[in-house]
């Protein structure tokens, strides 16, 4: 862990320990709801997403995000994120993914690195409780200096947009959430090489049911695809993948936490000599996400 990462982690941990906690909440780990913070409300989040196992070798990575969100009005909120990655892989010369004779993600890396930051805004057009069907728009821009998959250094920019739907049932005891997303990214590796670009549309959907006071059980899934314009190449379809899994959420007066496990159910093979029916170059066999939030 380098000094910058240690400082960021310590600062965020101290903030969490020193301040009394409140709550706005994500009922699911990946699919978000349409509600926004009220005007003047503020919230801190900590995200930890574990990515485990590729096609070969030993591969694990954790994506870390610390977020601060503020309600500009009763319908519009803004957020700032600090992003970091921890990689722990031993992929050898043949690589953890890709063709056997031309492996991807090679060598070993055991390191935690601060990568960059994101800025986000969310605007609620329709309230799920006043208008029956909630509708919100979301935009996010990210600057990254670390490749999320390999941990290599470079310069990346990302734009992400979402249309968010939320439908409550049973007086709000059951919630159905859906997000239509599109993501555009650029990445230029450090030390030369041209910039590559990608565009990834995605659809997420899930339900959460409050089975006891404060406790929700849920399930969600998503399908995404990526169109890639590699350095010195031209636009081409790269891959698609499908993930799904269960979710458990606790929401109290002061804080909330959501734990989601998702496995890759299907995807396009990442190389011709791999017929596992999963895409294991840009994604992994499973993900586990813990999100914790608390309001000020």
């Amino acid at each position, binding site marked *: 862990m380098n000094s910058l990462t240690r400082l960021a982690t310590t600062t965020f941990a101290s903030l969490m320990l020193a301040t009394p906690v409140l709550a706005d909440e994500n009922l699911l780990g990946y699919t978000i709801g349409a509600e926004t913070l009220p005007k003047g409300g503020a919230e801190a989040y900590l995200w930890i997403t574990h990515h485990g196992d590729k096609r070969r070798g030993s591969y694990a990575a954790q994506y870390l995000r610390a977020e601060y969100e503020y309600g500009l009005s009763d319908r519009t909120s803004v957020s700032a994120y600090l992003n970091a990655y*921890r990689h722990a892989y031993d992929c050898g010369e043949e690589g953890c993914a890709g063709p056997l004779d031309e492996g991807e993600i090679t060598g070993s890396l055991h390191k935690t690195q601060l990568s960059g930051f994101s800025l986000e805004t969310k605007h609620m057009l329709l309230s799920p409780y006043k208008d029956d069907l909630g509708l919100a728009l979301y935009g996010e821009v990210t600057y990254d200096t670390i490749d999320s998959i390999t941990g290599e250094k470079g310069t990346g920019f990302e734009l992400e947009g979402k249309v968010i739907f939320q439908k409550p049932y049973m007086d709000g005891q059951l919630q159905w959430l859906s997000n239509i997303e599109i993501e555009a990214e650029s990445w230029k590796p450090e030390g030369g090489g041209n910039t590559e670009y990608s565009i990834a549309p995605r659809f997420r959907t899930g339900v959460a049911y409050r089975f006891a006071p404060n406790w929700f059980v849920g399930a969600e899934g998503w399908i995404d695809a990526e169109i890639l314009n590699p350095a010195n190449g031209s636009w081409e379809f790269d891959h698609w993948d499908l993930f799904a899994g269960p979710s458990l959420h606790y929401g109290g007066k002061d804080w909330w936490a959501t734990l989601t496990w998702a496995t890759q159910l299907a995807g396009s093979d990442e190389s011709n000599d791999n017929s596992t029916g999963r895409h294991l170059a840009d994604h992994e066999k499973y993900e586990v996400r813990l999100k*914790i939030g608390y309001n000020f």
Partner: protein
Amino acid sequence: MRDFAPLLIIPAAALVVGPAHATEYLSIEQAQKAIFPEADSFIAAPVLLSKEQREAIEDRAGVKQRWEKQDVWRAEKNGELIGWFIVDNVVGKHEFITYAVGLLPEGKVKGVEVMVFKETYGDEIREASWRKTLEGKTLADPFKLDKDVPNISGATLSCRNVMNGVKRLLVLQQVALPTR
């Protein structure tokens, strides 16, 4: 799960221990006195609803009557019925919100008191200014947020469900309670 960094969980684990909050604001007796200060007795008259009655309430109120048993008291003065005192629960964002409603015999809301509220936002529904917007309501009123009942930002679900709960109890009064 291999190579998960336990260090990273420390801030998360620290959150699990949080301070408790006092969220029970009124006892039944306090709520009874607040809504019907002129009453000299409250006589327990719990109602056990039949399936047909619950369906009728849902049809007319537009929201589900979740309970078969509803806690009801006759508010009396000098032996005469002056109203009904009903304790009810509605879904909040995290827990049930417990509140009391006083209904006049002619089917009009006399008062509302929030007894237990544990949500992050929306403490304002406990304030008289919001509760007073429900006073005097009858089934002829629209019961619409931001129309005849104001919304509280960040607590829209709580506002909607308490408002709908009051409407449901007005219907319950017509379906299951005597006029005298």
